[in-house]
């Protein structure tokens, strides 16, 4: 397996050829904010929070979908990056109705945590307040598009891990929505196996178990690695 050398935050490091920049950064113990990325799912590059500066390039690149390259010089922290990351989080908060106080994930939400971490104490943009109805037609789960940040973790886990591909995305830009089946009530979708993986990987309160009230829902993202390790490597972590 070939190795490439690159410079991350002024430190010369080595990484495997083909490895993603984000993975190489994490290998160095460097913390970098992400929302759409989840270990066990394919990288998608949707949220752009993991962007980094590449010396010699005027544009910022999403590190999760950028492979390492020999001689690459990158910075993971700068005033410019922080400004853009804050802007992204503010735009996510303004696009729908992220009213934390009435959310089942209050206190356990990744968007909420990232906002606090980046120092987003208010949103500079107009709140768009779209009229998005919830889908509570499913036997076990509820979909609230008002909390959705369109990270597509649910779509990817449904397709790539469960193999059902019940969930997908419809529309573009602000009209974009996660849908079940052929844009039908979730509960009427015949392909949904009711496995609940989508609920567990959702970073916000967009997908939650029926009956959960504010700050009751706990999500366990690590189940994904547990399943995949067992399925692919025959390593079962029973503890």
């Amino acid at each position: 397996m070939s190795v490439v050398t690159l410079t991350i935050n002024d430190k010369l490091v080595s990484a495997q050829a083909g490895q993603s920049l984000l993975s190489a950064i994490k290998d160095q113990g460097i913390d970098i904010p992400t929302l759409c990325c989840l270990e066990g799912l394919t990288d998608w590059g949707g949220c752009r929070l993991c962007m980094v500066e590449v010396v010699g390039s005027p544009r910022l690149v999403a590190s999760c979908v950028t492979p390492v390259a020999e001689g690459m010089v990158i910075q993971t922290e700068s005033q410019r990056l922080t400004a853009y990351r804050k802007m992204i989080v503010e735009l996510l908060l303004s696009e729908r109705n992220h009213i934390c106080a009435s959310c089942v994930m209050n206190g356990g939400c990744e968007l909420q945590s990232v906002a606090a971490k980046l120092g987003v104490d208010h949103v500079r943009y107009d709140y768009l307040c779209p009229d998005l109805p919830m889908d509570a037609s499913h036997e076990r789960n509820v979909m609230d598009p008002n909390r959705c940040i369109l990270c597509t973790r649910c779509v990817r886990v449904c397709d790539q891990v469960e193999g059902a591909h019940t969930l997908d995305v419809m529309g573009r830009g602000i009209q974009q929505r996660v849908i079940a089946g052929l844009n039908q009530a979730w509960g009427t979708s015949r392909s949904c196996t009711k496995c609940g993986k989508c609920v567990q990987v959702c970073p916000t309160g967009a997908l939650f178990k029926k009956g959960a009230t504010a700050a009751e829902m706990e999500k366990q993202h690590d189940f994904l690695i547990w399943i995949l390790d067992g399925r692919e490597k025959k390593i079962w972590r029973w503890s």
Partner: protein
Amino acid sequence: MTTTASNKVRLATAWFGGCAGCHMSLLDLDERLIDVVGLVDIVYSPVADIKVFPEGVDVTLVEGACCNDENVHLAHEVRERSKIVIAFGDCAVTGNVPSMRNRLDRDQMINSVYFEGPGKPPPTSVLGHFLPTLIPKVLPLHQVIPVDIFLPGCPPDPERIWAAIVALLKGEPVLLPEEMRSFG
């Protein structure tokens, strides 16, 4: 920040569209309130029953979102007469729960609440004359007036209120740590 004859900070608190939870959280400072009262004069507050927002206020904590024309009017008075304005709690910072009406039609909502419900409806002349008129969209405070400090939380924990008060009284910038910055 000492402008009064008594050498105390002139503190005001205002209550717009909110549940008063932020004021309750302020009262939850418990015995530390005694220290605060020793250092500040409360010159306007819903708990002090003062009718007119005074001039020359050092710090004003504004709880609640701007929901009606009275809130907007008082917000401008607060800004003109205060050196430091703090958006106090999530409703002031984001619009929070009061802003959940923004996806609804305002007139239809007023009809549903006042005229289509059970019981006798109020006279039509009441709305817009004796009651403040709802503005089309609930707004966070900083979309109505410039805000100096944001203190998020629903309500802000007494510890984060205390952290802000201590910084202000020392004349230092209010820089809340990560765990004190979250919404909700």
